[in-house]
């Protein structure tokens, strides 16, 4: 019985991350950013970052060098071909969550 309980505990621990809720910022990313900056082969933001910064910096969700304030600044002001996102479309609260998700 003890063995069974221990096995269940190990199993639960193993699968727990899969059931953990996505961080709020991921939800914002998936709604607002993924079409340009997602992993799809034709995502224009990802393709342009691959050209200008290299493949290792193409996907925003895998970047380790983005500051939270930088994320917030770019979203509100735009960068090159990327337009700014207005606060009625992407609220301050959502932007903060996005910065937490993408920024380091």
């Amino acid at each position, binding site marked *: 019985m003890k063995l069974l309980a221990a096995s269940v505990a190990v199993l639960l621990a193993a699968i727990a991350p899969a059931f953990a809720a996505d961080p709020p910022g991921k939800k914002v990313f998936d709604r607002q950013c993924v079409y340009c900056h997602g992993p799809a082969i*034709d*995502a224009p933001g990802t393709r342009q970052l691959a050209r200008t910064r290299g493949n290792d910096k193409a996907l925003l969700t895998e970047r380790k060098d983005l500051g939270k304030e930088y994320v917030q600044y770019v979203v509100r002001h735009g960068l090159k*071909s990327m337009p700014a996102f207005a606060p009625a479309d992407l609220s301050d609260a959502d932007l903060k969550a996005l910065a937490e998700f993408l920024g380091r």
Partner: protein
Amino acid sequence: MTAPLPPGVSAEAMAGTLEHFRRIVGAEWMFTGEKVESYHDPYPIANDDTRFKAHAAVAPSSVEQVQEIVKAANASGVPLWPVSRGKNFAYGGAAPVLSGSVVLDMSRMNRILEVNEKFGYALVEPGVSYFDLYDYIQSKGLKLWLDVPDPGWGSVMGNALDHGVGYTPYGDHFMMQCGLEAVLANGEVVRTGMGAMPGNNTWQLFKYGFGPYVDGIFSQSNFGIVTKMGIWLMPDPGGYRPYMITFEREEDIEQVVEIVRPLRLANVIQNAATIRSLVLDAAIFSTRSQYTSEKGPISASVARKIMDDQQIGMWNFCGALYGPPAITDALWTVIRDSFAKIPGAKFYFPEDRKRRPDTLIHRADTMRGIPKLTEFGFLNWAGGGGHIGFSPVSPTTGADAIKQYRMVSSRVREAGFDYSGLMAIGFRELHHVTVIVYDKTSAEERARLDKLFRQLVAEAAAEGYGEYRTHIAYMDAIAGTYRWNDNALMKMHQTIKDALDPKGILAPGKSGIWPKHLRGGGNA
């Protein structure tokens, strides 16, 4: 930079009005100072930094709040610039024609009020994007298809009201509009068509109701603020086969369009198909620096290199067949045999395309109403990120198509830009959309583009070609070309404007229509 004030409005009056707005929507949804920067035109052309700048922005969440805002604006004379989602990029985005206006951002009014599978329509608020509506339809498993423009983040309503187009058989978005609700400048709410009858159940089924048909006066206009709109949706056609036909030579456009006209009129070509230029298609997935380091427009040898590399032509006809195989097979036979008369024509289905990413694979999504942002890849063609569309309308004839192409492409190239364009096929006309990609950080390039654009407008008008839609910087110029009979149409617009909005608080300058106190030019 100090926030600009509109003509005739004091700083005190503006402050008082903004305070009133703040009480209506809550402080969280009233934007001033640095937050207004996100409402600037992301692709500016003017080198005068005082133009097209909003003073503030306010974001209501309900029709009632819109009514209250309009009444407050009417009391103080503060002009409003309504936007559905503010994503009308290349046409000014959310930026107002008149500096000092307050942007009325309706992004928060984003309810999908109804999607009716039985009759094929949706009733939406201004803030509903193509992504939103698509996701809703998919989540409910409804057998309905959207028609989408290239950027999927735009407003379903805003795009239709600005006469935007897509690529399915429902490609003329305003043609598919049925019934709307608008807040007038005095705060009154009206419903058009059958919506004017209490208890009626055909608001989204029959456009005209009884009496004058007025929906059109709320499109590309400043006569009211549209708060609800019906849009017809295509039933799942039960089969789908996208295709691409490539043509080798620039001059082929003449014969291609001659073949297109009877096929489109007879609905053999079922959708709002496009004939796309080499650079437009190449630019989506590549940059010019991958092919040349030469300055100025690409040479013939570079063009050949791109064509070979990407399996595309000097012109690329992207179309699709909709329906069960028995129908699409028959239509394809006629289409294929018609275009096979053009030497060098090549025919492709998606399974014939091996390169990834690929133009046809991408267009296949768009032509079945899947919203995306992929097309924005072309902004990276030359670096710098700016773009604008010059879009004259012409009859669907080969003679007009080649004349248009030569007129526009020669001027564009003389100005040092690559020609990148498409001919969007309507039932009886072509929208010749030339997309000029420029370096928005270069004042010299912006000045060169401005000169070019004004020249294009004037030369097109001299040949009888008028633009269907434009950037906020050119609304006066283009309105001025629709001047038959001593500007009779503009005079009528002004009469309506004065009657519906006597204080001129709604979108001054939209489509060249100015309120009485601002007429005479120089206000933009």
